[in-house]
């Protein structure tokens, strides 16, 4: 195992972790407002398909990313209508959104399977210009990767250093109290969900437009669910979510490393490593995480009239 191969694995870990981190950040915002969205898998799929289709039609990846974000926000509004306005069960509504996303993304993407698109340019990581070429090629990242950590810090600032974030967290802890303090829980929840959907759309855009540059059905392969799991792992904190995404990226990297080194293990079992690792981490964190969950996560707000 050469240094070069290790770097290659690291590089692909960063690429595969980025879409997950955006999605996880979105879900942190949503859950801080008290809403669990199991429909993320479907939201991501529809965003990925829409973003890819727009990029393919217009030839402009930036428009595709924008379309993907808007789609994510709108999909979450659909989910939000069910759980906020109709006061439906969040888990079942999330799964309904997931089904909807499976179908709608297949419909949107069906004429773009195998299409070729222009992607974002990749720029060498600053300060590494002096390295030999085979090394620098491992550090060519795109705009969305460079932006992901600043976005995480931005989400942290939004949640913990602004009045809006304070109101949002209050709604997640106790919607009635927040209402008594003069906030409108329903509007805050819609705002949180829209923002969460846009971030999920950004993650999906990175997956389909930038990283894989293809569209295929079910391409997110459970990333939406892993994002929900990582929110628990990160104890509903945006900065710890970075560690969670690195962990997942590391799992993917480990899987690629094993495959590359020719270890005699079935590739199918290696494929399950990210899911198994997520499960193990959830178990290990299980006992300690209870105090950090927003108190009214998953509860329906019936209004305070």
């Amino acid at each position: 195992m050469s240094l070069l191969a290790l770097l290659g694995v690291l590089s692909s870990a960063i690429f595969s972790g980025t879409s997950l981190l955006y999605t996880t950040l979105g879900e942190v915002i949503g859950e801080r407002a008290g809403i669990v969205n199991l429909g993320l898998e479907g939201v991501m799929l529809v965003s990925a398909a829409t973003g890819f289709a727009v990029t393919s039609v217009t030839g402009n990846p930036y428009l595709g990313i924008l379309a993907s974000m808007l789609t994510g926000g709108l999909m979450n509004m659909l989910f939000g209508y069910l759980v906020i306005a109709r006061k439906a069960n969040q888990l079942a509504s999330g799964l309904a959104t997931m089904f909807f996303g499976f179908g709608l993304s297949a419909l949107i993407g069906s004429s773009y399977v195998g299409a070729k698109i222009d992607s974002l340019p990749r720029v060498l990581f600053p300060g590494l210009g002096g390295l030999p070429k085979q090394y620098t090629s491992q550090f060519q990242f795109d705009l969305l990767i460079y932006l992901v950590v600043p976005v995480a810090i931005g989400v942290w600032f939004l949640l913990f250093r602004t009045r809006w974030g304070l109101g949002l967290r209050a709604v997640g802890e106790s919607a009635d109290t927040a209402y008594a303090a003069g906030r409108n829980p329903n509007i805050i929840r819609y705002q949180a969900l829209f923002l969460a959907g846009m971030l999920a759309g950004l993650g999906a855009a990175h997956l389909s437009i930038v990283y894989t540059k293809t569209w295929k059905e079910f391409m997110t392969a459970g990333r939406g669910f892993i994002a929900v799991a990582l929110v628990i792992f990160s104890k509903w904190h945006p900065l710890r979510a970075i560690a969670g995404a690195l962990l997942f990226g590391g799992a993917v990297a480990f899987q690629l490393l094993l495959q590359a080194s020719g270890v005699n293990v079935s590739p199918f079992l290696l494929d399950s490593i990210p899911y198994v690792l997520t499960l193990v981490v959830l178990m290990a964190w299980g006992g300690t995480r209870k105090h950090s969950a927003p108190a009214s996560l998953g509860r329906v707000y019936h209004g305070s009239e």
Partner: protein
Amino acid sequence: MTILTQTRNKISLLNGKPVRVLLRYLVIFGVAFVLFGVILWLAGKHPIEAIRDMLVYTLGTPAGLSEVIVKMIPLLFTSIAVALPARVGLINVGAEGQLYIGAMFAAGTALAFPQLPAWILLPMMVAAGLAGGAIWAFIPVFLRARGLVNETITTLLMNYVAPTIVSFFVYGPWRARGTASAPQTVDFAEAARLPSFFDTRIHLGLVIGLVILAAYWYVMKYTRWGLEMRAVGGNQQAARRNGIRWTTYLILAMCVGGAIAGLAGMSEISGIHGRLRPNFSPGFGFTGFLINWLSNGDPIGILLMSFVIAMITSGGDILQLKQGLPFAVLNILLAITLFVVLAKPTLFERKKA
């Protein structure tokens, strides 16, 4: 852990007038079909033609109708696999994974003892399928009962693990040598096949499924277990203070549910395929979840909804053939149906009065 206590816990044999219940279902599906048609129209397809094709080719011909019943068999199992844990307030979204592991255990049994007669081999395969599903369901419910992880997210994630294990065996040790390029196990012995009826593909799994449905109805309605399970699902603390061992019920309900999902896998590979293939299930487990929510856990509702949903999914094959739509598009129709139910829960609540 409070997320899950909102599950509805009514078990009833259609209380309320049957006509009204039927009318409600007609309204739900009517709205769903119209919205589905609108989406198809927006996508530039011919909605009326598509929906007509779906109805004509499934209900209009004997062959189509028998295929609907074939598709309904696994859905009967998987919807009970979701309904039973739902009675104690558990959300089992892992029927898909449990189905795969059940099928894998059953296939292992069939491949290990090809020379046994059918009257020994088939019960062994049933037992293996039950065991496989139960084992796969035990992991998440054990973690839940210990208060470690919510079972919804674990069952969802385990759905992605189960097919990789099946693929490992089918591409690896169990792969048939020399024959077709498609990876699959060797064909099962004739003794390992569930018999089928009337020259169709309808097989004995239908009878097994109906028996399990009847048992589910009887246990829930007339036994102490059913009452205590509803108590656990209704108010966990009250149940605990009344001396009901609720963790036992959580684990039992989930494992029995998982076992039934495993049986769905066994009946599919033994009754239909006759061998184990990777990715043989087109989401039967997820569809079972949907059916349980549509029918509210009601046994007759499960039977009716399984039939209707089976009709819709067989319609998916028609859409794929005649309109060139991807099969997954069917999920839109299923999702809209669930949206309508979720957005209008009063359609069901009112029958309590």
